[in-house]
């Protein structure tokens, strides 16, 4: 039972990060119908910037309080990522809004490759160690242990997710975003500045992504120029699992995927009589995805899309 509880906690921690990143994918998809392949790279840039700022600050004043340190680093990372998202949308996606569908997908892939290699040139190929800012305390819940960093991750992601849902459902901006995703043309006729809303959507997604990047780097204590790729892929999978374009679906999908992965990794050996080991954890996630999509082709919470008449 202890192992199970432990895997559930690990899954929740992993899942809340997936959910944060998945929100970025799903928001953009909901409005533009575009898979923003570069979103994983934005997450990576967020982690890298925060790490660079922390290292620089620590070098200048080693006895700075951890909270100011992380606050400054996060602010810097979020600013850079938001600016990056703004540039991306303005320069690479907006001109292609009416182009054939695969064209923006290819530019997104291009941006992803570009960002990854720029990061590699700036920060090098080596794994970068994240300095231990917070003291690690381990807490006991239901016979499983959780570190303070992990608690922090779950709490922060929870707050951000609830905050986003509140913004989308109860503010003027949120209403404009929902209207734009329903129909850009009609939203425009209602006096909504569609371009601005799309731009803002990208930026909010990027800000969430930057935070997710910092959390991941803090959790594993390493950062690497290629860390965004797999994370982005998993998060996108989570978004599709939940029903892409649906905010609640992204959160649900993220948490589910995290749980499936960690529980699957813990038990797959026993289930298959030792035939498959924990290195098949990714297979597990993708098989679940395929099975879910076979029975619910638009994801768990996705709306049934009527066929084009």
């Amino acid at each position, binding site marked *: 039972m202890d192992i199970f509880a432990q895997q559930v906690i690990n899954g929740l921690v992993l899942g809340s990060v997936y959910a944060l990143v998945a929100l970025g994918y799903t928001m953009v*998809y909901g409005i533009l*119908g575009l*898979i923003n392949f570069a979103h994983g790279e934005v997450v990576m840039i967020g982690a890298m910037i925060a790490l660079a700022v922390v290292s620089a600050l620590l070098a200048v004043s080693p006895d700075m309080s951890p909270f100011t340190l992380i606050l400054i680093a996060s602010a810097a990372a979020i600013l850079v990522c938001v600016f990056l998202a703004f540039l991306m949308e303005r320069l*690479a996606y907006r*001109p*292609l809004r*009416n*182009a*054939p*569908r*695969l*064209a*923006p*997908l*290819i*530019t997104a*892939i*291009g*941006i*992803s*490759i*570009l*960002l*990854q*290699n*720029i990061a*590699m*040139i700036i920060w090098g190929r080596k794994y970068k160690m994240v300095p231990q800012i917070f003291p690690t305390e381990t807490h006991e819940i239901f016979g499983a242990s959780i570190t303070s960093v992990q608690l922090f991750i779950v709490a922060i992601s929870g707050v951000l997710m609830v905050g986003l849902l509140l913004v989308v459902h109860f503010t003027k901006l949120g209403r404009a975003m929902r209207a734009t995703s*329903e*129909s*850009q*043309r*009609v939203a425009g006729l209602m006096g909504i500045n569609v371009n601005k809303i799309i731009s803002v959507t990208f930026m909010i997604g990027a800000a969430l992504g930057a935070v997710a990047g910092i959390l991941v780097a803090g959790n594993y204590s390493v950062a690497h120029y290629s860390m965004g790729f797999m994370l982005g*892929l998993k998060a*996108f*999978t989570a978004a*599709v699992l939940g029903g*892409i374009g649906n905010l609640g679906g992204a959160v649900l999908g993220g948490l589910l995927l995290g749980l499936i992965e960690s529980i699957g990794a813990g038990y797959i050996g026993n289930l298959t009589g*030792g*035939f*498959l*080991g924990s*290195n*098949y954890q*990714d*297979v597990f996630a*993708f*098989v679940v*995805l*395929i099975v879910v*999509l*076979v029975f619910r*082709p*638009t*994801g768990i919470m996705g709306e049934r*899309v009527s*066929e*084009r*008449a």
Partner: protein
Amino acid sequence: MRLIAQQLLKKITSNKKALLLGYVLLFVALAVLPFLLSNTVGRTWVRILDFALIYAMLALGLNIVVGFAGLLDLGYIAFYAVGAYTWALLASPQFGLHLPFWAILPIGAGVAAIFGVLLGAPTLRLRGDYLAIVTLGFGEIIRIFLNNLDHPINVTNGPIGINKIDPISIGGVDLTRTHEWFGISFSGVHIYYYLLLALLIFTIVMCVRLENSRIGRAWLAIREDELAAQAMGINTRNIKLLAFALGATFGGVAGGLFASLQGFVSPESFGLLESIMVLCMVVLGGMGHVYGVLLGALLLSVLPEILRSTASPIQRAVFGDVYIDPEALRMLLFGLALIVVMLVRPTGLWPAPRRRTILDQDVDRD
């Protein structure tokens, strides 16, 4: 300029003799090309050309799925992997099997086709991006299995991969040795070039014939509007499965040739980035247009190699030192090229003349 070229092309194509002459010239040029390359820039370039031909075959296979039938496949490299591993297992010391070329070719193609149907069957109801993510997952699953099937029973040799794959030998001619025919010495890479060229020409002919066939028109109908296609009496299930199977077959054969040319396979060659690379060839060249895809494949497989070999010397000549790692620079420019080409020509470099928006059924939301 473009007008003149078009008129010239029209004049040539309308004149049967000129057309024939054009084909003969092209044929001679293609036949002489490897010797030209190996005598000027070195034999490595013939090898690069060999790989470019394999990529072209792969891209044409993906074009059937994405370009003709409009099914976005992000895990296409899985079939390439299946073909390569089938070949590797049947002709290497791994299991001690050494089947001849003519036996492995249909087996490899068949196994890949079966995998194509395996992927296609559960995804028939999915469309657009849901299909994309499932195919992506399928590709990853195949790669993870290849990476881990070294225990409890050693099938794929895990991350190390399979070594010492037999070279192709046709009619007693071993394709790795140098042969003397008509007083000209043909080295291994040259013979591979001719074999691959022949297979590629066969693939091109197949694709062009398919496109204009009953099946090709059915694919086009599904691509443009699946519901309407169904209403017209097209069995969309079978036709879609056929697209997956045929695309996979070409991928599988290309994979087998890759395995035998390279002599070894490892899961590393079949990552998601490779799938994306092939998709880029298709889209950049002009989705759904056989010659456009061919152009895209050749450009994207040869240009990066040229960059790889010239990046360092040029930097040294201009700045006096190598500032940016050539590998990073190559990918940097590749990413930039993708963005710029799509911004300037969203339909690809050489789109099909009769081309309507593909796969944009959900974009027009208003």
